[in-house]
């Protein structure tokens, strides 16, 4: 069966510090991978998605970046965090011919 893991689950970082959130998927090949952010208003905002290694599409301009160094690994990064980067970050995957997304458990980031 397929599983998705993301870590860390909780992170408290000072403004201006770097960020690295990691997500891996097991049990499938060539998944589409996604990073969402969920702010206090509960909505899910798509940040990045990837259909293959090294292929990253950005949905919104920001000081975050994403990378996909391996088929089932997706990393969300920042060189310098802003207060507004605080939120709940969710990694998700699906296969190219289905719409249903499978989400990880989320990473809660607090920038102080």
């Amino acid at each position: 069966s397929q599983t998705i893991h993301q870590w860390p689950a909780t992170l408290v970082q000072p403004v201006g510090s770097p960020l690295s959130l990691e997500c891996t998927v097991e049990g499938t090949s060539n998944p589409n991978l996604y990073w969402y952010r969920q702010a206090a208003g509960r909505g899910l905002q798509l940040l990045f998605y990837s259909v293959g290694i090294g292929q990253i599409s950005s949905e919104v301009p920001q000081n975050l970046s994403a990378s996909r160094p391996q088929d089932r690994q997706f990393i969300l990064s920042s060189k310098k965090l802003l207060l507004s980067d605080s939120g709940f970050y969710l990694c998700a995957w699906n296969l190219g011919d289905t719409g249903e997304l499978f989400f990880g458990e989320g990473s809660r980031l607090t920038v102080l």
Partner: protein
Amino acid sequence: GESVGLHLPTLSVQEGDNSIINCAYSNSASDYFIWYKQESGKGPQFIIDIRSNMDKRQGQRVTVLLNKTVKHLSLQIAATQPGDSAVYFCAALYSTLTFGKGTMLLVSP
């Protein structure tokens, strides 16, 4: 652009009642819709989906209704239980899944 929204931010029901959560979408180009449930501090979980060639689909205690004429989607939960308390999102598939803002369902015993 596409937008997907829900009509109410919070819905409070009594245990045992039926719950109805509504959602409207703006772009009729989508042919696939999903409802997700998100419990506090967790990732969203798939509940039920429906394709545009259907107007109703039933699962265990849940039913999704799709009205393409008015671009409206609803989730019905029968005999709502305290464990159903969560935020519910509708999502429509365009190039990627576009989510609504969510409705918080509160179930009181």
